[in-house]
């Protein structure tokens, strides 16, 4: 079993996801807020710009309700978390991140469907007592 531990960012649980364009060996790292209240088939929400830049294919649009509402475009993206293996092509909702009023430095959301790809996930304290978010495969 392999685990990745990400110290809380501005007192919030986040993960670091690497997103790749087709044919690129290296990608760009995005920090996503962990939000288990984000439910549905799709487990990622990214900015329109990232979805446009990194989309592998277009997916069907979907209905979203709650913090943002309406019909949103979805795309397939290639992504990874170094040292953890999981299906590398995931669907992401393309949204106006400003609507979500996320703190500076946070680029999107990782929801329940994404977290469910892993054997274990959750918040734990490190030996110094500081919170970190753990993903284990």
């Amino acid at each position, binding site marked *: 079993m392999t685990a990745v531990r990400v110290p809380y960012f501005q007192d919030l649980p986040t993960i670091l996801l690497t997103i790749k364009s087709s044919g690129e060996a290296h990608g760009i790292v995005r920090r996503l807020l962990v939000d288990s209240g984000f439910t549905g088939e799709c487990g990622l929400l990214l900015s329109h710009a990232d979805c446009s830049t990194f989309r592998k*294919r*277009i997916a*069907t649009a*979907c209905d*979203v309700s709650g913090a943002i509402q309406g019909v949103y475009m979805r795309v397939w993206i290639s992504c990874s978390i170094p040292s953890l293996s999981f299906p590398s092509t995931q669907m992401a*909702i393309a949204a106006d991140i400003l609507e979500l009023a996320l703190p500076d430095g946070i680029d999107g959301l990782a929801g329940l469907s994404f977290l469910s790809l892993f054997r274990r996930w959750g918040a734990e304290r490190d030996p110094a007592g500081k919170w970190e978010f753990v993903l284990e495969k």
Partner: protein
Amino acid sequence: MSTAEQIDDDTIAHMICTRREYQGQRFERGEFVGLMNGRVIGTGKTFEEVDTLLLNAGIPHGLGMVFQVEEPVPHVIR
């Protein structure tokens, strides 16, 4: 791809997901479908299979739609 073509593909995809049929072709629940400009390019068991079909049809990454045949699930962000 123009916006109108994207909307058209999205409409066709939703039709396939709800009716499981399009222009005489039947679709199984759970299978992946590749669409481009209103035309079904191919189907497969995984995203990767259909992605390869699109590439073989000369449709590069960034273009073309891939979706899984299933009932639409609403998303909620609390």
